[in-house]
């Protein structure tokens, strides 16, 4: 493979602790190496430019059945947005629910190289893998959802952690999944009865288990296995005024639990899109930010990581396995609604949404997301996301970076709000003058998520031995700049290397890369009871047989298996 030397760039790398100093980055055989290891490399002149590791997205909805429902039922999302095939680039379309091809290219253009699909219904794992397979360039993995799964509910009701762990290991292998995802624990199952679980002690109908038992049990099972990533939760009561208490209650379920993982993570709970979970007040009239209260907790508890779920003020498509929430949303905005039930496992809903700067609540949501990041003491534990496409499309990450780095940019946005004064009253943001620097941005978009995923041995930094995922941005941090120049630079990486292959050259897609699908193979002791339960449930309830369920070889042409030994 080609050798590259990226010379004289301003390097921001939390792994090596480089904070914008001039340094060279050497690439050989797909890995970062010492510069002395190079023979006759191709030299990339990065003088006056910003160099970082490839971005890592810990939470985005980019592949699978609900994303495709979004694509299918929103032809208007593609209107006027097509781009014809040109050179190496295949045809692209869509904005908030882009085609797989555009997903890969647009992440690459932003300098991202690893993207995790945040919610995979196990029954539709094959579909999810087919779409990931068709997404160029990116390394990807998918999180199967466990929080409303009948096996899990039955095992955890009796606190059978070993059985739950054995089932998780089996399901990760069957679906080629990466981590344990929980969406509205118990609530989506309750939705099958037309109900919901609005707090962590609200019992699930029929199963007679509470969300608290589900979350705590899954954390314990996750640590029993020692998986690379922690339990990854979207808590109950998303998107409702006053829900921050539910969020704090959910956080507290992790108290006293220490990580058991040889993959280097420090957290036992990753709470996703916390912006949607940080609301005070008791109605949309008096909704207010509780970002301070949320971050006070996060800042003082090392075993939690979070991501933002930043509202970007766009027209977008919401989609989640939180079925009851999507019904709530369609009742609010009267736009079209899709709902799906996934047999014994989960459900989902999809509704378009317009986050308008003229609507007070949308502006408050925007402020809350930014407050989370600006109140954070440790940028290694809070990550930039938009819960793509729920709070906005991922293509806005550079805009989020701009808002985080510039009070001027935030003031411009405040001035564009119709209800500016009311928004300022209901939030803290106007009083925050913190501006994040590029090192902190690298922590929030590279090193932090890589570490939380248990992938610090591969991604997130520029230390020799790591994968050669390197982005070069046309941005000189030492020269004065207008806020918009941040967004422009991070939207258009000048060069991007993925595992040593140059996939973006001079701002253009140069290669469709060599994408890999990551999955976790956790070995556990034989568990005849769980295997009997699996066979029985498939015989009695599932519409498919086991043979039509498991994700087999050709769905992952280029798999990357992470082995975990959890045998006694």
């Amino acid at each position, binding site marked *: 493979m080609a050798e590259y030397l990226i010379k004289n760039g301003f390097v921001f790398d939390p792994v090596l602790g480089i904070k914008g100093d001039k340094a060279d980055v050497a690439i050989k055989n797909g890995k970062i190496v010492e510069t002395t290891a190079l023979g006759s490399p191709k030299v990339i002149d990065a003088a006056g430019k910003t160099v970082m590791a490839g971005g890592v997205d810990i939470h985005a909805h980019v592949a699978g059945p609900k994303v495709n429902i979004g694509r299918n*039922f*929103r*032809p*208007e*999302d593609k*209107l006027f947005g097509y781009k*014809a095939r040109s050179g190496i680039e295949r045809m692209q379309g869509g904005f908030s629910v882009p085609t797989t091809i555009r997903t890969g290219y647009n992440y690459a253009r932003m300098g991202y190289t690893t993207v995790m699909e945040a919610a995979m219904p196990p029954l539709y794992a094959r579909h999810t893998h087919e779409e990931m397979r068709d997404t160029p360039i990116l390394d990807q993995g998918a999180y199967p959802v466990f929080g409303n799964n009948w096996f899990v509910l039955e095992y955890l009701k009796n606190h059978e952690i070993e059985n739950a762990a054995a089932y998780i290991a089996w399901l990760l292998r069957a679906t080629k999944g990466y981590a344990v995802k929980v969406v509205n624990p118990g609530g989506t199952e309750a939705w099958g009865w037309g109900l919901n679980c609005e707090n962590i002690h609200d019992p699930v109908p029929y199963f007679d288990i509470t969300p608290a038992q589900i979350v705590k049990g899954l954390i314990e099972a996750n640590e029993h296995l020692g998986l690379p990533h922690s339990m990854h939760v979207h808590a109950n009561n998303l998107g409702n005024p006053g829900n921050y208490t539910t969020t704090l209650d959910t956080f507290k379920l992790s108290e006293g639990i220490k990580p058991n993982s040889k993959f280097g993570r420090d957290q036992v709970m990753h709470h996703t899109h916390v912006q949607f979970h940080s609301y005070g007040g008791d109605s949309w009239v008096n909704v207010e930010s509780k970002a301070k209260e949320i971050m006070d907790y996060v800042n003082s508890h090392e075993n939690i990581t979070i991501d933002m779920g930043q509202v970007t003020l766009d027209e977008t498509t919401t989609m989640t396995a939180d079925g009851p929430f999507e019904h709530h949303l369609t009742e609010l905005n*009267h*736009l*079209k609604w899709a709902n799906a039930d996934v047999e014994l496992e989960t459900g989902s809903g999809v509704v*378009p949404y317009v986050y308008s700067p003229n609507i007070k609540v949308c502006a408050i949501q925007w402020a809350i997301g930014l407050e989370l990041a600006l109140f954070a003491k440790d940028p290694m534990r809070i990550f930039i996301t938009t819960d793509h496409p729920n709070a906005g499309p991922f293509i806005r990450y550079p805009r989020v970076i701009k808002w985080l780095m510039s009070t001027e940019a935030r003031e411009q946005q405040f001035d564009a709000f119709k209800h500016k004064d009311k928004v300022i009253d209901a939030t803290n943001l106007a009083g925050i003058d913190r501006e994040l620097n590029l090192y902190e941005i690298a922590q929030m978009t590279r090193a932090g998520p890589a570490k939380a995923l248990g992938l610090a041995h591969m991604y997130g930094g520029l230390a020799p031995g790591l994968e050669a995922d390197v982005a070069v941005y046309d941005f000189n941090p030492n020269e004065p700049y207008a806020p918009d120049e941040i967004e422009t630079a991070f939207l258009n990486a000048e060069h991007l290397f993925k595992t040593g292959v140059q996939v973006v050259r001079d701002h253009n897609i140069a290669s469709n890369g060599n994408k890999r699908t990551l999955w976790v193979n956790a070995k556990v002791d034989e568990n005849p009871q769980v295997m009997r339960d699996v066979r029985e449930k498939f015989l009695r309830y599932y519409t498919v047989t086991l043979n039509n369920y498991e994700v087999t070889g050709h769905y992952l042409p280029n798999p990357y298996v992470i082995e975990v030994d959890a045998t006694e």
Partner: protein
Amino acid sequence: METVTLTIKNQPDLFLEADTITPDAFAGKKIEEIADLHVYVGREQHRLGDFFEISGKAGATPEETKIVVNGDLSRVKYIGMKMTAGEVVVNGNADMYVGAWMQGGKITVNGDVDAFAGTGMKGGELIIKGNAGNYLGAAYRGDWRGMQAGTITVTGNAGSDIGTFMNGGEIVIGGDVDVHVATHAEGGRIIIKGNAKSRLGGQMVEGEIYVLGSIDLMMPGFAYREDVDVDVDGIKGRFALYEGDLGERHRKRKGQTIYAKLYQRIEA
């Protein structure tokens, strides 16, 4: 006002997507530059001048630009799309999407138009001297933002699904219409001077439909309220007033539920 005249000289093998035939695209350009504007046949890009003889002169701004298009345009789509000002006269039949998403100015078609004319229209005036196809003044597929404002006048008949998701503006049909009128509409006014078939106002939230002729079958979601005298837009007479769609959500104003209104003429 300056005038540019386009006369079709070569018919496309498939259909010509000519969203560049607008005063906005032409304004301030020389005739050679107008001939170089892009049009598509399938996925192939061509020049406007490959298909049209172009003469005359464009104005400096869209407001000062008039376009006259001559010939058989039944394979030409998107004439006047997104135009904001100026005038377009089509002498012949045109294909789909005439005046789609137009925001201002005036389009006159001396002939028939196919489906989706005035889709998502936000303003301006669309006059069709012949017949219109389906989805006149409707929303784009999947979208909930149909015609917002402006006026559409059709001398002849219109097809089905006119005014789907209409939110404002006015559609006047001189002749008859096919099924589905103002489905999902939340505003606006549709006047049908001829006869209607069935499914008028399905899932309609707000807005008005006037039918001067017959209605084959009334939606069960519309309830007869009373007979009223109407004098709107030159339409005078005694009308039966129905309200609906009773199965849809409706907002309240001063304690009163606001329904969509359907007026059918009893006598002139």
